[in-house]
C-alpha cells in the first residue's frame, strides 16, 4: 500500500487515541505519547504495527497520542488513519481488524 498523504483518525478525548500516519522510508516508526506508556507502550505500538502490516504498509511515520484507548479502538483508529493516508477510504478493508 502506498501512502499518498497524511491521514489522521481519532480524537484527544478520554478513552480514545489520535493516530497520524504519514510517509516514511525506514520501516514503521512510531512516536507514542501516552500517560500509560510504561505499562502499555509496547502493547500499543504492537497493535499499531500489526494493523499497518496487515493492511500492507511497511514504511510509515506514525504519531500516536493515546488517552487510554483499548486495543480494539487503537486498531480501528490505525486502520482509519491508514485508509485516509492511502486514499482508500471508499473501500474499507475491515477484515484487517
Amino acid at each position: 500500500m502506498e501512502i499518498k498523504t497524511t491521514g489522521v483518525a481519532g480524537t484527544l478525548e478520554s478513552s480514545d487515541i489520535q493516530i497520524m500516519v504519514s510517509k516514511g522510508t525506514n520501516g514503521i516508526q512510531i512516536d507514542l505519547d501516552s500517560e500509560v506508556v510504561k505499562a502499555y507502550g509496547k502493547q500499543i505500538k504492537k497493535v499499531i504495527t500489526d494493523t499497518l502490516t496487515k493492511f500492507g504498509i511497511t514504511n510509515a511515520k506514525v504519531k500516536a497520542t493515546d488517552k487510554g484507548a483499548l486495543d480494539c479502538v487503537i486498531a480501528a483508529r490505525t486502520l482509519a488513519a491508514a485508509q485516509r493516508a492511502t486514499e482508500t477510504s471508499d473501500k474499507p478493508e475491515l477484515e484487517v481488524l
Partner: protein
Amino acid sequence: MDKVVDLYLNIASVKTKWQTFLTGLGLHNFSERELAVIDHTLGLVDETGKLVGTGSIAGNVLKYIGVQNDDAHPGARFNQIVTALQQYLFSQQIFHCFVFTKEKYSASFSHLGFRELAHTEEAAFLESGTPDINDYVAALPQVPDQKNKRVAAVVMNANPFTLGHQQLVAQASRENDLVYVFVVATDASLFKTSERMKLVQAGTAACKNVQVVSGGDYLVSSATFPAYFLKSPDELIKTQTVIDARVFKKYLVPALAIKARYLGTEPFSRTTNFYNESLKQELEPEVAVQIIPRYQVNGKVITATKVRQAIKDDSLSQVKEMLPDSTWQFIEANKKILQDRIKKGMKINGN
C-alpha cells in the same frame, strides 16, 4: 454533553459574547492586529446553550483557547476544543500546528501530544503533528565531519537582498568552513518568499561554502515571532525574540554544530534591535554572536527599507549602488509588479 459550534466573530453580538467569556478567563489582548489574522473560531456550548469554551485558528497557529471548568471533568473541555480545532485543520489538509501560550498552560498542551519547543517565564511555544522540527532539521544539508568544522549561521528576511546582506555573508564565508543562510519563510513581505530565496541564492553564489536554506516554521516565522511582521508592544517582542533564540539554540545549534551566528548592527529597526540583544544574551557563550557593523556605500548605510521606499517612489537609481547586480536586475525587470503590490496595500516600512 457539550457541543462544538462555529462562532462567527463578524457578527457583533457573537464577538461581544466571545470576548466577554475570554476576558473572564484572564485573556485581554483583543487588538485589531491579533484579531485580523484569525481564520476560524469554534465554541463549546453546554446543554443550556451557555458558552463554556472556545478556540481559534490563525493559519496553523492555535489561539485564544479558553475553557470554563467549574462544572466539568477537569481537562475534558480543553481536550474537546483542541481536538475540534485540530479536526478543522486536518480538514484543510494542515497536519502540523503550533501554539504560543502562557507558560502555565504548557503542561495541558503537552498532555495532548504537543511538544514544547521553548519557553520563557511567561510564554511557551509548542508544536504538534508532522512534519515536526526534527524532520525539518534532518532535511537540512550537511557536509562530512561537520562536527569538527567551523559552522556559522545567518538568518535574514532579505526583503530584498542588498550589498549589506551580501557582505555579511561574504565575511561569514571567509571566516568559516560552512555557512547556513536561513531565509525567513513567512510570506508577509514585499518580495515573496520564492523571490527572496532566489535573490539570496544568486547573490551568494560566489561563496562556495554557503548553503541557502529556508528558515521553515522555526526561524523568525509567523509562528515563533509574529511581532517581526506586525507592530507590537516591547514586552511581546522581547518574549518572542527570546523564544526564537531558544528554539535556534536547542534544535539547530547541536544538530548542525553551529558555532557562530552573524548579525548586522541595526541602526533603524527597533524590533530587530531587540532581536539582536536577545540573541546575544541567549546564545553566548556556546555560540559566538558576531555583530558586524552595517556596510556603507559612499557614507550611506545600506538598508533594504530604503530600497523598498525607492521602488515605491520610482527613484531606483538612488539605490542602485546598494544592490548586487542580481537583485538590481530583478527589481528593474519586475518594477511594475512590485509597485502594484505596494499600491494594493503591501506595507514597506516594516522588516
